[in-house]
């Protein structure tokens, strides 16, 4: 999985759950401040990301993932570890 593939997949998830167009989900955006996504939607995104990428993002990790790039990095790193 390349970072581009993860970013595209994450964009689809955010669009489906929060109604934010996927093309607005760019790496340096903050979920809370730029995309107006709240903590409960973040949980839904984490659950959907687990279904899509096979990477679990526990709540205690989730709180530290503030930007789109943070989530991409987390998924890339942990997908690698599980391979």
């Amino acid at each position, binding site marked *: 999985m390349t970072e581009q593939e993860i970013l595209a997949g994450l964009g689809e998830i955010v669009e489906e759950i929060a109604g934010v167009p996927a093309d607005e989900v760019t790496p340096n955006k903050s979920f809370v401040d730029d995309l107006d996504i*709240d*903590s*409960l939607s*973040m*949980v*839904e995104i*984490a*659950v959907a990301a687990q279904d899509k990428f096979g990477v679990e993002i526990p*709540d205690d990790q*989730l709180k530290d993932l503030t930007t789109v790039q943070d989530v991409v990095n987390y998924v890339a790193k942990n997908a690698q570890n599980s391979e």
Partner: protein
Amino acid sequence: MTPLHSFPPAPGARIISLGGYQPGNVVTNDDLAAQVDTSDEWIRSRVGIISRRFAGPDESVADMAVVAGGKALAGSGLAPADIDLVIVASCSAEAPIPNASAIVAHRLGIGAPGAYDLNAACAGFCYALANAADAVRAGTARHVLVIGSEKMTAWIDPHDRSTCIIFADGAGAAVVGPVADGEPAGIGPVVWGSAGDLAAKIGIPDRHSYMYQEGQAVFRWATTAMHPIAIQACERAGVAVSDLSAFVPHQANLRIVEAIARRLGVPRERVADDIVHAGNTSSASIPLALARMTERGDLKSGSPALLLGFGAGMCYAAQVITVP
């Protein structure tokens, strides 16, 4: 050898009638915003609540249970003496002794029934309904009054905005009785369980403390672990999800309700959203929603509805019922 049961065993049980009660004190989001740092917009978007009811200072779990139970009893066409068992599901009673159910039975003129309180938190009504159906089938009771009654505000810190915007007070009740020979059961097999490994996610630390919950963890659990339970309940009842006239989950948070419904594939118009004007009333939320939906004529008599209770413990229970 004496008989093992007091009544003839029944082929199945059904809900005969319903009753709901909300206290008179309407509390709006703006009312709450005057005491904690929150807003109408914030509350609506996070939990989907517009208003809720708070019990009066002297109004108890038993008081509310009496009103809801009395309505259900009146709607059943039965006399108080016909009730053999009273179960009050509650997790917010003022004190553990005496139990609410015996007091409620006495005040409704039900003479010397079996009476016990049941605490499975927000899953309590579904647990109690399953016990009632089992009692009727086994012949240990002929008619059972099942009530969920909660004064959550007694255990909520009015200055904790993570809980005070969600929880509220109220009661809902159902009269359960046997089906006639040859009739299908009106209360389907229960699918229940618990996840004690997560029990610390919701609690009241001691008698001098208020309730707390870890919102994100509870949200994740409810939106990932509950829809498979609901599907199992439908399978055991032999009812397709697409045939349900209504999905009535515990009114925990509108976001949770909608997320579970989406995963189940139940269209939004068939999903109970009583929380909007009732708040989260724990074990009362399902019977309160059912009573209101039947009063409004939203539910077709004889159609299948899916109930799903879940909450602290973490306890859960689901069953398909036939709308009375």
